[in-house]
């Protein structure tokens, strides 16, 4: 042992542990992210699954798709060095449907794909947390669609 310092092996171990601690300490700096996809406010039914109405039997959507709609709700948080970037896109699904549908009485929207993902990345001095919900849908004509109950 030379001088009053630590042995070389212990010094290396300590510096390695310190480096790891610095890296781990950066993780909370990433923060936590969550996101929600919804169609609240859409003027038409936005259907998941094969049942189109109360009392209807399960069936594939009738008629051809008039239009397709995609939307993605995303929350992302990136930290690189001392810089942080937050990105948060609110769901626009209902607004997109409302803009597309001219006659809500005779249109249904059928969700063809609803997927959610979460991923975390850590690369030396860069970290990222990302969560998203993606929805793909089509607008279909409803043959007997109406807004008013028949007498």
């Amino acid at each position, binding site marked *: 042992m030379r001088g009053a310092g630590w042995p070389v092996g212990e010094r290396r171990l300590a510096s390695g542990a310190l480096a790891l601690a610095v890296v781990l300490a950066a993780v909370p700096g990433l923060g936590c992210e969550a996101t929600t996809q919804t169609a609240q406010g859409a003027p038409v039914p936005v259907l998941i699954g094969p049942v189109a109405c*109360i009392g209807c039997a399960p069936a594939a959507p009738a008629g051809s798709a008039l239009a397709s709609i995609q939307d993605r709700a995303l929350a992302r948080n990136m930290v690189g060095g001392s810089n942080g970037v937050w990105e948060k896109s609110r769901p626009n699904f209902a607004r997109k449907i409302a803009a597309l549908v001219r006659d809500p009485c005779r249109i249904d929207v059928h969700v063809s794909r609803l997927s959610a993902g979460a991923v975390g990345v850590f690369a030396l001095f860069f970290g990222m947390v990302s*969560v998203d919900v993606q929805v793909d849908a089509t607008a279909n004509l409803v043959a007997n669609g109406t807004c008013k109950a028949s007498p």
Partner: protein
Amino acid sequence: MSKRPSDSPGLVLMLSGLLVGCAGANVEVTARGAVYPISMSGIVRDNSGTLLDVHSMKIVSGFHLEATRVGILYSGVTPHGTLDISDAVNAQVSAAQGEAVIRLSITVEDSCDLVNTLPVLNAIPFWPGCVPVVLDGLIVKRRPPPAPPPATPPSSPADP
């Protein structure tokens, strides 16, 4: 004389590799076996084709489902990556004596963020990442049609 790490590029690369990683998972939500209508908006139709909004229906309960799916290989593979909500919808709607689920929303929560970003460990290909999903909605049923007004008995001429 011992070798310094800088003298061994392979070792440096390996150590650097331990600090580069990612983890996560993906899930596809389906309802192929549902026997009740499920709407992400507040609107659903009855079997005559009439639009019914939340005000013209009775909320009988809330729908709630939580699920977490685990992914490996840097989020590239998610075993059981399909979440079929049909059984939960059928059971909860039936138990509440409802007729449909409306205002269904899907949330990816933050409870997996730490696991997905954990340095060193998420460099391992089989380190499990995850995606926590919460689905919420309202279970509704149609309001019964208003009862007809009670027939007023004809006034008797014998009444005083």
